[in-house]
């Protein structure tokens, strides 16, 4: 219990934005249909935890230039409560065989379109 408490303390402060890392691959995102599917999966699953406002999945640029944040999925909630539940509920689960790591993401960076954090 002590350890669990410490782990909670080490977590960065909760924000309204949850970032899922190690979720999707560049190849999956290149395909329009797959991209739409992933987006829908995220909306449905993310909506279970709270009022989900926005889902952002950065896609690789068509010319192959490196694009920031590819492989991540951002879920923006109306409140911290929803984001907190989503982070706890999605962290460690599998999405398409990948084990998801869910972290809070700075709201200001998210709104500035800075997905490379």
């Amino acid at each position, binding site marked *: 219990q002590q350890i669990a408490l410490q782990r909670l303390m080490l977590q960065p402060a909760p924000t309204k934005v949850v970032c899922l890392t190690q979720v999707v691959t560049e190849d999956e995102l290149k395909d329009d*249909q797959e991209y739409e*599917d*992933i987006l829908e999966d995220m909306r*449905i*699953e993310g909506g279970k935890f709270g009022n989900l406002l926005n889902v952002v999945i950065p896609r690789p640029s068509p010319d192959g230039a490196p694009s920031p944040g590819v492989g991540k999925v951002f879920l923006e909630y109306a409140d911290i409560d929803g984001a907190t539940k989503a982070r*706890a*509920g*999605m962290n460690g*689960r599998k*999405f398409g065989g990948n084990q998801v790591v869910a972290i809070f993401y700075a709201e200001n960076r998210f709104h500035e379109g800075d997905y490379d954090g």
Partner: protein
Amino acid sequence: EAGSGTRKRKSRWADDEPKPVIQLPDFMKDFTGGIEFDPEIQALNARLLEISRMLQSGTSQSGLPLDDRPEGARSPSPEPIYDNMGIRINTREYRARERLNKERQEIISQIIKKNPAFKPPADYRPPKLHK
């Protein structure tokens, strides 16, 4: 018929329900889930800790709750008792310690009454029913 309807495809999310972050073994649920958070038990536990600290803090200038009014102002001490070396047994510290020990045993009895799963310290002696 290779998956004609894209609408009815399966979510990529694994089926398993989201796990609670902290999974405690069953035997611990009794402690954490309910009775441990009972405010009465918490108060008893807090007092128990306080007493243990006072008892461990040594004899002189200690945390023992001694009446520090001058001799004439406080209630009179009982008749001194000496051991066979002529050293007084029932000093003020000794009596304060005895009082705390007694209170400590009583608190532990109360906690056990409320929470039979409570594991008393090794030096706890259940009260005798008759002397």
